[in-house]
């Protein structure tokens, strides 16, 4: 088994095929999209492949240490050009091929006109713990 992170972007990913902002969809199309995402997560829970999924607010800040006794420096809100993560799903699957297959399904979630968004998702393997037998 290997864990993969499926990353969804607010911006920074290549443009989707059906690239219409959500507030320009109909309310029914939004409901259909949310239903698809919920069903997808529920199906992965049933198949024993779901680990975690969370959504992130678009607002945030950069933060760094600024030396002994000083408060951390913050810089925000993010510049318009920053790559912006919208959320993630962690899956635990048997192969890279399975991870790609699932990311493809997730990317097929319906958007404007009820048609698949074809959104680009980032698939990233976790660095695993070292195996017991190494030689």
């Amino acid at each position: 088994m290997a864990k993969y992170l499926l990353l969804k972007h607010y911006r920074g990913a290549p443009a989707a095929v059906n690239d219409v902002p959500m507030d320009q969809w109909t309310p029914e199309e939004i409901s259909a999209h949310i239903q698809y995402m919920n069903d997808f997560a529920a199906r992965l829970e049933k198949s024993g492949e779901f680990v975690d999924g969370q959504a992130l607010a678009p607002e945030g800040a950069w933060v760094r240490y600024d030396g002994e006794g000083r408060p951390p420096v913050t810089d925000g809100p993010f510049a318009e050009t920053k790559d912006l993560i919208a959320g993630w799903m962690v899956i635990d699957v048997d192969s890279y091929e399975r991870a790609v297959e699932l990311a493809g399904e997730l990317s097929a979630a319906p958007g404007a006109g009820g048609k698949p968004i074809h959104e680009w998702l980032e698939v990233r393997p976790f660095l695993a713990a070292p195996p017991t037998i190494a030689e």
Partner: protein
Amino acid sequence: MDEVLLRSLTPTVLGILVRRGADFAAAEDAVQDALLEAARVWPADPPRDAKSWLVTVAWRKFLDQVRADAARRRRENRVEEEPAPGPAPAVDDTLQLYFLCAHPSLTPSSAVALTLRAVGGLTTRQIAQAYLVPEATMAQRISRAKRTVSGVRFDQPGDVATVLRVLYLVFNEGYSGDIDLAAEAIRLTRQLAAQVDHPEVAGLLALMLLHHARRATRTAPDGSLVPLAAQDRGRWDTELIAEGVRILQAALARDRLGEFQAQAAIAALHADAPTAEETDWVQIVEWYDELARLTDSPIVRLNRAVALGEADGPRAGLAALAALDTALPRHTAVAAYLHERDGDLVTAARLYAEAAGKAPSLAERDYLTRQAARLNALHRH
């Protein structure tokens, strides 16, 4: 005996152990162990007297633990001289436990966790599930909280207000595990109301009951939020509403107004309206004025702007909103709503979309995005 009844004995049993001289942290562990054993043993072999069973088993667990510690520290003799457990004292220390678990030296998250375990009798695993953190994290949070209050004297009265804040948090936040936190908060507040005669305790209980009465109608079957005006009022729980109103009226009659009574009064006015259109917004604005006087909270003023928008028209609401900091949570969502009521659908749609980007929860974000989509769709036709 069901699980909730079993758990309701937790603070009494814990109080008895502490009265007998057990320190709070060790006694709390012992009670938790006894509860786990009860859950295992009772289904097949129910005790005649649940409370004495729990006291006996918890005391034995406590002694086992002390002896194990003592053996390590070679202090066996002193422990052997501890008095045998006598009859349970008549005083109920439940109230003291509430104070201890909500002690001002605890952070809100620690106070919530400790209250749910030591007063509510929930297991660490159940609490961890409710707040979506690993069990080991929650165990650490609880044991640190117990260390923090270890020096606090058990017999000193605390501040009811701190307890109420903790119970309010339990009611208002948290996710689902196998425990219904809202119902648990109501149970703990009822238990507190039985211990202490205080109009704000009654006010909080009334507030919880009145909100809980609407719970089934707050979300659609697909999980999306249903705003108050669109809820199916026929499905509100009239028994809970009647109880909430009764408790609130008795509290208000004592003429010691506090923020929970004022919030409950607003909830009661909503519960009282047969349709959204019949809501007595003028009275609700007056209650928000009372609340603003009591709390000086900008959130209250934001809610007041919404109520004013209903009572005196959206322009009045927008004027009140203009006086508030735009960085307030939900400021943009309120602006969107008031602009929609005012007939400016283009501005409203833009603000709904903007508010969706600032929403603090997924459900709210989806709701606001839908509102924007609904107005944009109208505009296209």
